């Protein structure tokens, strides 16, 4: 249930989609990818209506629960999805190295740890160098070191020209985004840069900024 959302995701940047669980982040991301039944409104992605066939090669999508085949090895998973996307032959090895999962290439999905599964799902989304990456909670359940590595990877991808829309319910990850969209109960509370958000709420802490936004909305 999303209400009157209007926002734009700038190209070549990491945009964070933040808000508590159940606020509509996943629904919004699925609408962008084109797998959500949308009852009204317009979603335009890379200049085309969301869900159009031409977009399917240009968007990489990774769901909250890692959608990889548990009864295939990581590499077999990547090879299959690469074949579906028509990605270059060496793409599976490339994305494995980028998410730091090369050691587990021949491990079955079922034997991976939660963090490894997450990265395997992320690797699939990176196949074929999509222009837009939609990542639903890609760092959930990861240790701080891995989280930092993945955020560095997101910024490298953005520098190469990709656009990233990354959701999280952890506010300290917000500081790593160039732009933030804060959602609560299906409504946008803020659409700003982290600094802009801090300035507007007169606090240096983004968690505090979020709480003040909610109080502001309640008072209005």
């Amino acid at each position: 249930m999303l209400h009157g959302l209007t926002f734009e995701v700038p190209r070549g940047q990491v945009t964070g989609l933040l808000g508590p669980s159940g606020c509509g982040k996943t629904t919004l991301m699925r609408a962008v990818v084109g797998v959500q039944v949308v009852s009204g409104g317009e979603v335009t992605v890379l200049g085309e209506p969301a869900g159009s066939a031409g977009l399917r090669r240009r968007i990489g999508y990774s769901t909250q629960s890692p959608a990889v085949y548990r009864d295939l090895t990581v590499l077999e998973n990547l090879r299959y999805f690469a074949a579906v996307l028509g990605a270059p032959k060496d793409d599976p090895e490339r994305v494995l190295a980028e998410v730091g999962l090369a050691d587990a290439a021949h491990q079955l999905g079922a034997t991976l740890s939660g963090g490894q599964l997450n990265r395997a799902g992320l690797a699939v989304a990176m196949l074929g160098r999509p222009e837009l990456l939609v990542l639903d909670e890609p760092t959930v359940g990861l240790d701080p070191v891995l989280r930092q590595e993945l955020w560095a990877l997101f910024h490298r991808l953005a520098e190469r020209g990709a656009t990233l829309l990354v959701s999280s319910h952890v506010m300290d990850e917000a500081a790593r985004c160039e732009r933030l969209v804060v959602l609560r109960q299906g409504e946008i509370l803020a659409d700003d840069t982290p600094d802009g958000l801090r300035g507007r709420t007169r606090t240096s802490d983004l968690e505090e900024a979020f709480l003040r936004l909610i109080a502001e909305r309640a008072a209005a």
Partner: protein
Amino acid sequence: MSLVITLATARRILTQLRHDRRTVALMVLVPTLVMILLYYVIDDQRAFGRFAPVLLCVFPFLVMFLVTSIATLRERTSGTLERLMAMPLGRLDLLLGYGLAFGLAACVQVALALAVSLTWLGLDIPGPLWPLVLVALLDALLGTALGLLCSAFARTEFQAVQLMPVVMIPQVLLGGILVPRGRMTPVLEWISDVLPMSYAIEAMAHACADTGPGGEFWRDVALVAGSAVLALLLGAVTLRRRTP
């Protein structure tokens, strides 16, 4: 639709099977073991000659129905289907990929059961063997197609397994194995007339008759093949790009 994606999908499904050796062993060996059991239970060469082809008809259907309904249900619940629907994969690519992979598995299954029946168990087929294999394969495809379709109506693996007797038992009871179809009460005969398994069993009987495959055989084969295509198309309708 894309041949490359269909073949990649079939290869992926066979690779999944390869990692699950126990399932492969069960799929390949069980029909043969049941055939051997049937032989010793009946203990009469002529009666065995009548029942063995029915078993060759029922087993590929049964096993492929089960395997496909569970496999596609997993695909729906694990999120891999959603991932594929966000990719340039046609719905028929996925369905034909499943049909191809499990059709191949059915070939192995039928080949072993048939080889053991013809040699060790002394099954006598007067005509050529290919009509028999053709019907068994069509049965496997029908099972795959119906499995895909039925998996859309199950939320859990428990439910999917329970659908098997629902689809299977009426078709076997009304298929003319226990009581010839012409001797059933009219209502049951009408129901029997619209169940694809009735024609599969009939086609198998024609295939094993010493007259060899004739016009009636081809009519039955066309009906079974048509049912498989219909189930596949209905299955395609249940695969949605957008879900709530």
